[in-house]
């Protein structure tokens, strides 16, 4: 399965990545190679193989439901480009 450039542009847009025209060709080739690998894997008979959710053969440890974090707003907001009234400010977004 080969990708064309417009599909690469769409994927890049969804991931909010900028791919320049000169890069697009190389990226297209590389993703097409990855898809070829996936095609190869798809052709293997996996009927008797249990789906794998995670490569580690261990299960999730659980946390007791208690509040362990303190308010760190002041130090965290020092990292932000802009904040006001306790809110982080970002370029205007509307649905």
């Amino acid at each position, binding site marked *: 399965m080969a990708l064309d450039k417009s599909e690469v542009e769409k994927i890049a847009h969804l991931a909010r990545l900028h791919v320049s025209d000169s890069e697009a060709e190389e990226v297209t080739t590389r993703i097409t190679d990855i898809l070829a690998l996936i095609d190869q894997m798809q052709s293997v008979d996996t009927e008797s193989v249990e789906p794998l959710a995670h490569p580690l053969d261990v299960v999730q440890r659980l946390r007791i*439901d208690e509040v362990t*974090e303190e308010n*760190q707003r002041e130090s*965290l907001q020092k990292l932000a480009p802009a904040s006001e009234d306790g809110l*982080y400010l970002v370029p*205007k*977004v509307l649905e």
Partner: protein
Amino acid sequence: MEWETVIGLEVHVSLSTKSKLFSGSSTEFGADPNTQASIFDCALPGTLPVFNEEALRMAVRFGVAIGAEIGKQSVFDRKNYFYPDLPKGYQVTQLDFPTVGKGALTVTLSDGSEKVIGVTRAHIEENAGKSLHEEFHGMSGIDLNRAGEPLLEIVSEPEIASAEEAVAYLKKLHTIIRYLDISDAIMAQGSMRCDVNVSIRPVGETELGTRTEIKNINSFRFVEKAIISEVQRQQEILEDGGRIIQETRRYNADKDETTSMRSKEVANDYRYFPEPDLLPVVIDDEYIAAVKAQLPELPDAKRSRFAEEYALSEYDAGVLVSSRELAEYYEIVASQSDDAKLAANWVSQDLLGLLNKNNWELADSPIQAERLAMLITRIKDKTISGKIAKTVFETMLEDESDVDTIIENKGLKQVTDSGEIEKFVDEVISNNPDQVQQYKDGKQQVIGFLVGQCMQLSKGKANPAQVNELLREKMQ
């Protein structure tokens, strides 16, 4: 053409854990912005999620309550999209292996019939933060207190055929969730939210029509109205030969119509993949059995028990079990007054009427179960009449003294002394010779008027049965 409606509901419920789904931040409602947003909630690099065991227990509790299959291995996935109130750039959710699988709810409709509505699944996921779009000189403000709070998304089968069924399903879900104590489930506050998928098709057609999704409706009534108006809109389009566009719509309550939310947006492509930062969550039969053993008596079981134990109609029993608190209240009134039927009437009519009128929760009621039980006891032992009891009930709203004190202070005690009643009866007979004559001529119904006169004379305190009996005796 005859159309039929197909509705599926996605309900998000905020689980009432103390801390967030994957971090130890508080979930307390109403805190100052970003004071409950830790380095993990802000998605600082290097932080990792640790799953909250209480969120898992609550999800399983819901699952066993609706008789659902429980996923012994649940797997978290990333749903990728970009929005500033989602700092990680993805929401952690469960796609292929949710904690709760297929289950069902039984709802009762207004004609008394019952319908089973399938629940496809319920999965655990994290909430996003909040965006505020006003007053920041052209910028948007972001509050991440809500980011990472645990949600349970409950997805129904597309088996709901009308707005009425949708509301019945939602109310049932709400009741069960409150019984289970896993969420406040207050729609107005957003701790329960509902997305509605609606399509219509000609009756007899087996393929589903193109659906639209109405997002984030925040009251039962608006769910009903939104569905009715959306079905109407789709029907008009199809009957004019048009076609429905699959899209997300918003319900505008002021105009009572749905409007398109996103017109030009590219089809959603969330590029799900398994969340590598979390391992599969594994539970065993023992865990599920332990959660099941801790279930409270659920609304359906309680309704059947009330109907049988207290000899109530299914309808009355259904009203009384509509919330766990109300059911508990009723049981106190019924047992202390030792009159289940009278208790049911007072609780479902007078008390609920009072709560509705004032928009109160049961906890706000100035009339506690014990006081209402005492009031009913005083009707039963004939200290007061049922009618006077309504006056006492009104007084109890402002006067916190006990029922006997109110009856005493207001002089409302029923007159059962036959000598005193005789005085009222004699006076009424001598004042109304015409009516008395009519009665003697066989016009029996005049007795009602004469009893009424006696009651008025006694300021409502005479025992009406005694008045009636004595009047008849004297007019023979």
